[in-house]
């Protein structure tokens, strides 16, 4: 008969003494918003990222010296490749039909090569954003 005692997670306790919490600067907030093209929304959103980083920092308790990173569980086998021939298509109209804005056979985008406005203007642009 198996009797299980509660498994202690000691290393995680040690961790909290070893690692300082990361603070996200306003510059980094700006950088991430430009990269991700989503906004933090509020100070709470920034704190949420800080908590997510704090949580992720627990990884550093584990010794991974010399361990090969793992991308996929299929790394040990050759994956199936089909013949390089066209098997479907002629669905341009169907696909264009899903877009809110098209012109002839093109998806329409507003003017490009214009950087995202500065933080203050961005907030005004976004509804219900407090930052």
């Amino acid at each position, binding site marked *: 008969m198996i009797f*299980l005692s509660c498994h202690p997670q000691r290393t995680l306790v040690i961790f909290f003494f070893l690692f300082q919490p990361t603070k996200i600067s306003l510059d980094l907030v700006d950088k991430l918003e430009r990269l991700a093209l989503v906004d933090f*929304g509020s100070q709470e959103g920034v704190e949420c990222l800080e908590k997510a980083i704090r949580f992720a920092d627990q990884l550093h308790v584990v010794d991974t010296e010399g361990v090969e990173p793992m991308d996929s569980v299929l790394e040990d086998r050759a994956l199936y490749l089909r013949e390089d021939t066209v098997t479907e298509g002629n669905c341009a109209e169907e696909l264009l039909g899903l877009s809110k804005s098209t012109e002839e056979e093109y998806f329409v985008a507003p003017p490009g090569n214009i950087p995202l406005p500065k933080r203050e203007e961005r907030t005004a642009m976004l509804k219900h954003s407090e930052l």
Partner: protein
Amino acid sequence: MDVLDQSEIRIPRRHTGRRKPRWQPTVQEALKCEKSEKRRTSAIMLGLSIKEVSAALREGKLSATELCRKCLQRIKKTRHLNAYITVTEELAMRQAQEADDRLLRGKPLGPLDGIPFSVKDNFCTENIETTCASRMLRGYCPPFNATVVQKLLDQGAVLVGKTNLDEFAMGSGSTDGVFGPVRNPWSYAAPYRTLSHGTDPDSDWVITGGSSGGSAAAVASLSSFLALGSDTGGSTRNPGSLCGVVALKPSYSLLSRHGLIPLVNSMDVPGIMSRSVHDTAIALSVLQGRDEKDSTTVQAPDSHPAALPQEFDVRDLCVGVPKEYHAPGLSAETLSQWTRVAAMFERAGARVCEVSLPHTQYSIVCYHVLCCCEVASNMARFDGLQYGHRSAVESSTEALYATTRHEGFNNVVRRRVLSGNYFLLKQNYERYFVKAQQIRRLITEDFRRVFASGVDVLLTPTTLSDAATYSDFIQEDNRTRSAQDDIFTQPVNLAGLPAVTVPTSLSSRGLPLSLQLIGQRLQDRKLLAVAHWMEQQLDFPLIRFHDEDDVQDTKSERNRDRERTSGS
């Protein structure tokens, strides 16, 4: 007296093979019930297993249209659960009619012909709205079917609707979608209502778990015989566990992901939910196999879909119990189910041994990082240009992207995308992303070592406890909840292994408790054979709604029980 008076939870239980519960009505009985018991009759019919209902369809005791209509009525009656986003009533009736034509000619397409099923709303369905419970995809009607959906349709299964979820499947409660939270059907079932005295069903309802909560609720409330979920870190097994249904996360690469809107490509799998292991095995044999449209699929190892063995000898079996799964926060009741079932295997002659998966405690952290990173990448496709929501801001392309994504995504999605972008920053890439990938290998190696030592399956809890009430659940944010609720489920996603959750009993609150079995890679069928054996010993009750529980019925059925007991 037992905490649960069995008479309170008695309704047709599912077919359990050898040990048939004595009061279970046969198909004939179910169909010939008195008119006054009409309501009960449909509950009995809808509570049959796929195997039974499929036999009834073939023998002409029941028509597919009648069955479909009953399911659609059930959906209407259980609308308060919010299990469905779209109900495909017209299409379903048309498909059922076609199934009837085939059945009449004596030429059904297979065991699923005429069987009503539902699909989580993150699988593409041709010309049927597919929303991911997000404003971003509201109104989006894909021009194609996901491979798994197409395979079920090709077998004649009848699609009754698309089910609710957490937005883009990010969550563990089915509480964070744009269409509102899903309610666990067991909130309205006799056991919970009886055991939680003096509470109000409108305020004390419990969550389904997530993110495939709508699919779990649909199967548990008997409006679908089968449902597709998706499982990236436990999204099929978690709600399956809390709603008392059998939920399988197949081996990675066994089922096609084509048409499943991706969350984490290296971990996503379509999941199968039904009310019995046998039904799950039927669905698996239809769905598995290589797909030209998904290069990460492999050929199923057992190409001829044999039925599960009726007599499974557990004496040849070694069941591993990983000690690390006795984690802080595990409820006393779940622990006692775990030890009870381990002892059950042992009594039956299986070898049960404690094993160790030393890196498993870091798994949830590893999963958190990899998930955010892949989410950040996958969500990049939603920009408002080609499909889905498009903001009215047209000052520049970047402004259109930013506003579209601001308006389209909820807080949970936005925060995961931002976290992922942080972990993927040039200066953080090695420190977080690569580090997590290294730990992923250590976790996978742990499993490999345990299985190489002679263990056939692992027995673990699926969740820490039974379902929380909605009001308790929303006290914590989505990230915290996911970290707690995915604790036992996500390690197998990192390792690509198959796992199935099987309900074991009801808790002292009258809610389902379940356990998880983990198998070796691509040995899904063996895993199901073990799960089937376990299910047969456990005899978990099917749901019975409080309002169907009128005194007269209870009495008459109690007598019938007695008659059968004395007769046997």
